[in-house]
């Protein structure tokens, strides 16, 4: 087993603007090759955190390592490996989509022939091949957003920060983009996704962190967080049967690891300590009860998010 490698690792990262603390002793880490969702209400310090990790703005105190480099002291090394899609992405309106990308490739020191090839590739990835030679001032908001993704990918980054990447996209565009994002870890790119669209985050992110007033309030795996926050660390398994007899309840209750069983109509809600679906299925079928369906309760990010911000 190799050691766990962090793409991002921060300790007590703090940022103040005119005596207001925007990011407050933030410590978190992002594993390599995962999609990390950075959530939080407006003004929670998400963008400021990203800017600090890019070395675009200096932290007041604390340290950060991005891909093993200190972004404050070695910003160029970080920027060589990291792509950033700002929330309000802009392009040079007088240049074509291809020229805009070629300029970024030039800034990254990519040789001309390579740059042309990569430009064609990334434009294809975001579905803009047919518009490659149109000037950007003719582009819609969604097309600019897609060009922004292409712009981030052209340097073949090890880590990308995407700030609200789906805003302005149509549903089909969102789906394509989410698929694209989900594929990035397979290509060796870690993704940090900042978004308010909880459903989209849940669809692609492996783990999340919720920021509030500059502090990380929850961090971790979405499923684990749901269980911890909403079900006290327990699993809820729904078993649907056509004959919810008291006998069946007794049989299930006798199973090791089952804490509680409630009948709700034809559905039995079983609280367990671990994922007991195989055992449950076996017990039900072996005792000749008809099993219609069984599912483990999934926790939606909405619930986790709302629960946290309702409490506070």
């Amino acid at each position: 087993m190799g050691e766990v490698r962090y793409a991002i690792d921060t300790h007590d990262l703090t940022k103040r603007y005119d005596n207001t603390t925007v990011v407050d002793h933030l410590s978190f880490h992002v594993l390599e090759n995962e999609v990390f969702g950075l959530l939080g209400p407006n003004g929670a310090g998400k963008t400021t955190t990203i800017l600090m990790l890019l070395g675009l703005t200096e932290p007041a105190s604390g340290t950060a390592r991005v891909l093993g480099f200190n972004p404050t002291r070695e910003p160029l090394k970080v920027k060589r490996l990291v792509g950033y899609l700002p929330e309000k992405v802009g392009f040079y309106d007088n240049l074509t989509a291809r020229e805009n990308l070629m300029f970024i490739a030039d800034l990254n020191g990519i040789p001309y022939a390579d740059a042309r090839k990569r430009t064609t590739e990334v434009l294809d990835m975001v579905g803009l091949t047919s518009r490659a030679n149109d000037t950007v001032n003719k582009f819609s908001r969604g097309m600019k957003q897609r060009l922004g993704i292409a712009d981030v990918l052209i340097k073949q980054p090890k880590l990308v920060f995407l700030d609200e990447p789906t805003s302005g996209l149509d549903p089909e565009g969102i789906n394509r983009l989410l698929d694209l994002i989900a594929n990035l870890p397979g290509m060796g790119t870690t993704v940090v996704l900042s978004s308010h669209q909880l459903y989209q985050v849940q669809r692609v992110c492996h783990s999340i962190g919720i920021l509030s007033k500059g502090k990380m309030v929850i961090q971790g795996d979405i499923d684990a967080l749901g269980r911890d926050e909403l079900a006290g660390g327990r699993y809820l398994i729904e078993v649907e049967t056509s004959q919810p007899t008291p006998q069946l309840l007794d049989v299930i209750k006798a199973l090791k690891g089952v804490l509680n069983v409630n009948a709700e109509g034809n559905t039995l809600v079983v609280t367990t300590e671990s994922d007991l679906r195989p055992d449950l299925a076996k017990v039900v079928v072996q005792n000749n009860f008809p099993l219609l369906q069984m599912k483990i309760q999934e926790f939606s990010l909405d619930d986790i998010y709302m629960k946290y911000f309702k409490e506070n």
Partner: protein
Amino acid sequence: MTAVLRKELADYFTSIRFIVFFVLTLFGAAVGLITASQGIRQVNLPPDFTFLGLFTTSGTVLPSLTSLLALLVPLIGIALGFDAINSERTGGTLSRLLSQPVFRDSVINGKFLAATVTITVMIATTLGLVAGYGLRMIGVPPNAEEIIRLFIYLILTVFYGAFWLGLAMLFSVVLRRIASSLLVCLGIWLFFGIFILLIAPAIANAIAPVTQNSPEAELIRNANIKAMVMRISPNTLYSEATGALLLPIAVGSLGMISTTQASFMVANPLSFSQSLLLVWPHLVGLISLSVICFAISYILFMRQEIRAT
């Protein structure tokens, strides 16, 4: 930095404002040539400086080429620089640009250099065209001294343009709105170009009041104060230096000469070394002004925070 320089140069040379100002400058050159062709016989230039007369001769109605350039160059500098940084900011390209592996100063250096190159190309082309057509027109070739004088005039003009460019870029760093940086630049241009002509005599009269029958010493003091105030303006520095370089007989404009003294003056042109000596402070002043302007915008840009909003 070469990447930024390349892009900015390409941008400038294809931009509408470049074309507009280039056409204006060429138009100015044409006007200057026509003026010179009509007036050059009357101005009685010393034989060594006939060729320079092409650039400095003004007619009864039409201005000379140098005075047209003196008017256009600040505007070109402002036009190329007033939105250098804040257009990137409002367009949302600045944070994208700065998240690339380039030093932050190469952005502002590249822009400044590209604009300076653009100005140089514009002015050098204009001077070259006028020299060429003028040669055909008057048939008097320039001598070596005239060529050196013209070359120094070119350098002087480029730095004059660079000063306005630096000033415009400074405001493009400080002010977030493109319209306000343009307005402030034009305001300063108006102040140095026109208002100082009204203010300087007022200040001189307040410090050293003169009447019609004041002694000569008082008159000289008044005139010196006025000239000193005027020289705050880079426009004055530029036009005085231009005069001493290209029209070396009219150096009287650089200092006070009384009518009695003037009657003894021999119409003898200044030698090149004397001209250079005379304009040296002007040249250094203009260069340092442009360096200061650029340095301030450089420092401010380097320290400016890229904020989340």
